[in-house]
């Protein structure tokens, strides 16, 4: 009987402790601010209350957007032959990184793809452009023809230009994270239309890490897998993001400057993890166009300067390959 009494008491004690521990893991408050900016939906997530958080986010977002669109949009096009353009520091740093990746990919990624992007205009088009128009746009593409001297960009021909569409959101993520930290927000997530920038310690995770899902490019479910990250960017480029269908064929928005057509190498999406947001953004596009084999060579080279870099390739047949993703506890279903 003594032992029954003892076990009853221990059950009671156990229940009491369980209830206290449940009370201890009460839900962390989450504050969200959502805006339509940079041609997408931007959501800020924080875990601490801050007065005027909404106006702070809005003003920082506007500042980042103004910096990127100083020349009227997400690209600069030369109005005359041999034009020079004085860039702000942010855009100059983007061009510098983009030129590096352009050369690393042997032109499969090309920062000067702007005339081709304008021609295809995948956001609004319903029909692919003519072969002649593609050839004439391609004649203006070539990263080797442009140069950057300090902040001065040289564009060789009228109509040639640079496209920040593949780098802007990555750059903005880093700037916003830095400015939010300076304004007393210690941790959070900035989601720029699927470009994820996390900063600080996640209060919901004992190691302070954030779990970031990778969208399932086939739309079978919300995510195909996830990674655990801290103070970095997780950027994905996918054929599913923007496209139109013509004659039963899908024409997506990631163009191959070698062919003038949407990249077609069996890749459905590429995710890049890197603490440098502009590089992560540029690279997700570059790896998508370069393909897996060249992509792995590029990652090998880049990881010497950026050891935190990782990438996840999802192929059209549904298989997944990755580079360094085990560092981020990559988990695929």
């Amino acid at each position, binding site marked *: 009987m003594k032992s029954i009494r003892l076990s*009853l008491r221990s059950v009671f004690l156990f229940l009491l402790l369980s209830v206290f521990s449940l009370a201890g893991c009460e839900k962390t408050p989450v504050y969200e601010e959502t805006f339509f900016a940079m041609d997408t939906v931007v959501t800020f997530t924080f875990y601490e209350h801050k007065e005027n958080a909404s106006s702070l986010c809005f003003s920082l977002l506007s500042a980042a957007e103004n910096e990127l669109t100083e020349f009227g949009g997400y690209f600069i096009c030369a109005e005359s032959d041999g034009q020079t353009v004085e860039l702000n520091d942010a855009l100059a740093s983007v061009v510098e990184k983009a030129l590096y990746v352009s050369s690393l990919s042997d032109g499969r990624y090309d920062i000067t793809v702007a005339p081709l992007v304008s021609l295809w205009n995948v956001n609004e088009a319903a029909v692919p452009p003519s072969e002649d128009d593609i050839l004439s746009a391609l004649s203006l593409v070539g990263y080797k023809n442009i140069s950057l001297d300090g902040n001065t960009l040289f564009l060789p021909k009228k109509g040639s230009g640079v496209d920040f569409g593949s780098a802007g959101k990555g750059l903005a993520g880093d700037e916003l994270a830095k400015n939010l930290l300076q304004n007393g927000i210690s941790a959070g997530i900035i989601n720029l239309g699927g470009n994820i920038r996390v900063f600080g310690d996640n209060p919901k995770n004992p190691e302070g890490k954030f*779990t970031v899902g990778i969208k399932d490019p086939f739309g079978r479910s919300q995510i195909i897998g996830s990674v655990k990250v801290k103070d970095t960017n997780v950027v994905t480029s*996918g054929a599913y993001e923007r496209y139109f269908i013509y004659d039963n064929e899908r024409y997506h928005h990631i163009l191959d400057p070698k062919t003038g057509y949407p990249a077609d190498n069996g890749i459905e999406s590429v995710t890049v993890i890197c603490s440098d947001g502009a590089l992560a953004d540029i690279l997700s596009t570059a790896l998508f166009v370069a393909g897996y084999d060249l992509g792995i060579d590029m990652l090998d080279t880049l990881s010497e300067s950026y050891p935190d870099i990782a990438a996840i390739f999802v192929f059209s047949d549904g298989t997944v390959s990755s580079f360094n993703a085990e560092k981020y506890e990559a988990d695929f279903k």
Partner: protein
Amino acid sequence: MEETNLKIRKSDIVLTCAIVVFCAVAAAAMFFLRTGGDTVRIYKDGELFSEHSLSSDAVINVDGLMDVVIQNGKVRVENSVCPSGACEHSGFVYKKGESIICLPNRILIKISGEGETDAVSG
């Protein structure tokens, strides 16, 4: 062994009752205090447009731009005026944290609550 030790004492009954009551209260608290995952929030131009329960079927017309259909605990978009129809192609969403975005209409439909991830890249 002493005879008295084998008898059920009053305190044992009290303790047993206390455990039963405790379990009942804890179960009730967990049931009633559970949060998230059952509210659909519709944002238009970044502002909250309306809020709905995921458990009651409804069709919500958002400013004549689209119909948000809540049916059997799932949400989808119908009759969108946007040219691409990407929001309609999103199909059903129903898990905590999932969302449908319609950029041309500047509408975001989100299921509240914490999902299995903190964010989704893509």
